[in-house]
């Protein structure tokens, strides 16, 4: 692990037609913003399965950002409304599980809003820095220390299978 100051890691689920395109626009416009978000492209914010959000946190994400089209503009008519409804309940449930609401963020960013991509990401990184790391894998490892014979490695899918060790990453 590097000795740099901790940087939040954010997984971004961006819809192809609006937010992903907006991020491309930010790129073409050379708008500079924090590098903490790793974007995963989906066709619609309606594809965002709450399992993806939970898995992201379980695998070490400090924040999850979902980007979709503005209400009324969804390329697939109403996928973003389904995303919104799931988000409302999921965020409340995350709170009940001790995960602060700022860690899951849903933003409507249209294809023309390159600036908003920067504003949202920078803001989210700031807020997460104040909250500190979530580091669920670290917590799982810590909790598993209470077992006399250690955790069972292949248990379910909650414990991530370690990727083959690489040189200097």
């Amino acid at each position, binding site marked *: 692990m590097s000795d740099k100051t901790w940087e939040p890691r954010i997984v971004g689920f961006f819809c192809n037609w609006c937010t992903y395109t907006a991020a491309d626009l930010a790129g073409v416009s050379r708008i500079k913003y924090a590098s903490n978000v790793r974007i995963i492209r989906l066709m619609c914010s*309606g594809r965002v*399965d*709450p*399992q993806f*959000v*939970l*898995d992201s*946190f*379980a695998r070490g994400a400090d924040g999850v950002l979902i980007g979709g089209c503005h*209400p009324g503009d969804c390329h697939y008519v*109403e996928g973003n*409304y*389904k995303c*919104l*409804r*799931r988000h*409302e*309940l*999921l965020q*409340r*449930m995350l*709170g*009940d*599980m*001790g*995960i*602060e*609401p700022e860690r899951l963020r849903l933003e409507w960013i249209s294809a023309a809003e390159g600036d908003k991509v920067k504003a949202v990401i920078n803001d989210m990184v700031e807020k997460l820095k104040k909250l500190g790391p*979530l580091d*669920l894998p670290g*917590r*799982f490892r810590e*909790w598993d220390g*209470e*077992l*006399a*014979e250690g*955790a*069972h490695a*292949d*248990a*379910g*899918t*909650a*414990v991530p299978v370690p990727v083959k060790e690489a040189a200097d990453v």
Partner: protein
Amino acid sequence: MSKPKVAFYWCASCGGCEEAVVDLAEDILGVVEAVDIVLWPVAMDFKKHDVEAMPDKSIVATLLNGAIRTSEQEEMAHMLRRKSQYMIAYGACAASGGIPGLANQFSLQELLKFVYEDGPSNANAAKTYPQTAHDDGGRRLTLPRLHEVVRTLDQVVDVDYYLPGCPPTPKLTAAAVGALLSGNLPPKGSVLAPDIALCDECPRKASKPTDLGFAEFQRPHQKLMDPEKCFLAQGVVCMGPATRGGCEALCVNGHMPCSGCFGGTSRVKDQGAKILSSLAANLVAKEEKAIAAVLAGIPDPVGTFYRYGLPASLLRKKVPGGE
């Protein structure tokens, strides 16, 4: 030839799974005849040292029910794993954490404080808490240590098969035992229940409309429920669509919605997340306040969606200090 050896053991459980075995009724005589039960604390007098003395893998199968949350349970799970060819997680607690798994919403300290201090029916003015060791007149008494985290069996030892349910039904239990004895077993890691959601066998399926949109949610005690109509169609949360079938819809036939004890299908990673996704998406409201108002009808999503599966879920346990 000697009969195959079988062990039943219980960890953090309620005893319902032992009853399920007993519920095999007359069939249990067939079981008792066919196998040699070498451990069954609730019904027989074998001790831990009897099991310790056995050679490794000399037990054909251990059916272990209950979640793992104490050092003793952990130790017994490991021991039985060494002694058995097949380790079967029997019942929802062993398979996915069960009701005890809901303890993962609290820290151990919070739990002990409620149980031994704040509980409304307590008479414990001295604030006596259980200890793991106590010296009494030169003799040392010990108790197992409680874990911070309630775990599923497979988070502690390698599990060969799972029999879900709270408890598993006699039919599924008999089928599992039969498969064991005949050697006709599915691939390792299989859940011995159908891999299709409960709606497939639900008697109320036809009454569920294909254009259902939720305008409100109510809980069973809040309304007089129609005895024949699909619960979801009546605005009552039913875990059926996200839960494996095979239980013959016992709860539904008992006029209560499914609460999810058979766990999710093999195609999902997190049963609670999936039912959340489905219920929320099917709301009618489109505007934030209206959405929140409808969802307020599900005041305890963790308890409702993860009633039997919190330790097996992706998040497993509430993060301390957050919120």
